[in-house]
């Protein structure tokens, strides 16, 4: 398994595969299906200061090779996550990445400060990009200066490294990435969902009660690959990539683009065993392609071949 281990700020991962935030709850349901210790990490559901119910249903709709969701950050709130969910996760040998969300800067800061003290939280993922929440949020994810300041404030209080989750719904993704790097981010996670909508033919109204929602799944993979290709050359902090990953081939495509680890979201719904399956498939695929260590793949799409050969030296 030493062919798959990855070191990232705060994260010593036995392998680079983890479930994406919001697609795995706090792990309880999946723990009944397989041993979570197989995972590299878990990105837990977004946590806000207060508990939230989220949006009215229907909250999901299907699209070609994708789905829309408008969960609306439903979560049990900071206290319950600290007192119930995180302690429950301590039974596993898993570095947890805590997804932090809010409507105001103060909320982010408060959640980050507290949650970063949990012993098994090894990194934060600042969710500045949730498309499904009415107030706030949008500016954090689309205006570089705002994102930078938020990152700074959270960095000041966090006891663990901070990853910022970028929204793909922007004109210039590299500008956003550079801004949060300037703000002190230790890493990036990308991409969150694209804003989308489906309309029901019979009613003529949006399928989702929230009208629009976040598009995820294989449909968005080419957008994520292109953004990671661009951003990984523009910043020097590592990227955890996500968007439409379904199998080991997709994981390598993300590494080639410039990711240093990956997260699997929607695919957990289609196949709840997808994460351990990918972890099992990876070394087989690497053998087929003559790759000795997964980290050798990182950035191969833009590194010159010489650079690449010396990469691990």
């Amino acid at each position, binding site marked *: 398994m030493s062919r798959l281990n990855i070191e990232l700020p705060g994260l010593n991962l036995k392998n680079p595969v983890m479930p994406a935030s919001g697609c795995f709850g706090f792990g309880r349901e999946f723990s009944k299906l397989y041993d979570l210790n197989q995972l590299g990490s878990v990105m837990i559901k977004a946590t806000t200061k207060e508990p939230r119910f989220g949006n009215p249903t*229907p909250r999901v709709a299907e699209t070609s090779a994708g789905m829309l969701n408008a969960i609306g950050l439903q979560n049990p*709130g900071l206290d319950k996550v600290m007192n119930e969910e995180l302690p429950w996760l301590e039974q596993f040998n898993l570095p947890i990445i805590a997804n932090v969300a809010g409507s105001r800067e103060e909320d982010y800061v408060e959640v980050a400060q507290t949650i970063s003290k949990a012993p098994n939280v090894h990194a934060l993922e600042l969710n500045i990009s949730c498309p499904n929440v009415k107030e706030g949020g949008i500016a954090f994810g689309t205006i570089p200066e705002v994102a930078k300041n938020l990152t700074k404030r959270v960095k000041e209080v966090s006891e663990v490294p901070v990853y910022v989750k970028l929204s793909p719904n922007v004109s210039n993704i590299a500008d956003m990435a550079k801004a949060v790097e300037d703000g002190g981010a230790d890493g990036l996670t990308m991409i969150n969902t694209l804003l989308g909508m489906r309309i029901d033919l019979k009613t003529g109204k949006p399928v989702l009660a929230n009208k629009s929602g976040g598009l995820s799944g294989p449909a968005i993979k080419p957008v994520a690959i292109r953004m990671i290709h661009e951003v990984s050359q523009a910043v020097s902090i590592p990227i955890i990539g996500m968007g439409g990953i379904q199998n080991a081939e997709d994981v390598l495509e993300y590494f080639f683009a410039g990711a240093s680890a990956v997260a699997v979201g929607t695919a957990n719904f289609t196949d709840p065993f997808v994460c351990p399956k990918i972890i099992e498939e990876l070394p087989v695929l690497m053998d087929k392609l003559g790759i000795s260590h997964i980290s050798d793949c990182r950035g191969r799409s833009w590194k010159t071949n010489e650079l690449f050969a010396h990469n691990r030296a």
Partner: protein
Amino acid sequence: MIKNEKLSVVSHRKLANRIFEMTLCGELVTEMDQPGQFVHIKVSNGVDPLLRRPISISSINSEKKQFTIIYRSEGQGTALLAAKEGGQEIDVLGPLGNGFSEHEAEPGDTAVLVGGGIGVPPLYELSKRLTGKGVTVIHVLGFQTKDAVFYEEEFKKLGETYIATADGTHGTKGFVTDILEKLTVRMDVIYSCGPGPMLKALEQKYGHKKLFLSLEERMGCGIGACFACVCHTADDPEGVSYKKVCSDGPVFRAGEVLL
């Protein structure tokens, strides 16, 4: 335990207009312990369509490791399901959710099973179990029209069976509630599954009784992890407390959740 398995199609036939009955066989059946649970079916091999489809378990044959589903060919997913042939394999996740508790009815009790359209199927296994333990079962089943009626004979074998059709082409014209109003039997327990408006009407009229409702909601994961299928609890209709249709339900006691 929830399992993911490729099950083989034992038989597949059309029951009524756009209504199909499919019997599947596999180890997963040994995990099925309750009527009213459902399975989550991958209808294609690729990403088109992407999500699984939730379909209720209609009857279980543990010995043969077989179970039956009855579904309506609605959109893309169920149309693909309808095209499957005997011998083919289908990727099934299940059993999922909490079904109807047959223990709520005692031998000697009278249970009324109320189904609407594609809400009818899960009542069949329930009825078999209830009658099996000596409960008197009465079926009140609603359909749109004559062509959509299925399993009338099967239910009749288990107990008194009343059919309502919206257009009056078969049985009584009207809704299941019209039939219920005229029923003079004792209703010790009512079990129901069907469209939202039907469930609401039942809760309004019979909410004071022992009434169980099976809900439908659009789903992502089907196992309780994605928060797609959440509903408010009845005692906190504007608050943050919730139940998940997929893993806390789909069957709830009347008054438990906000319909």
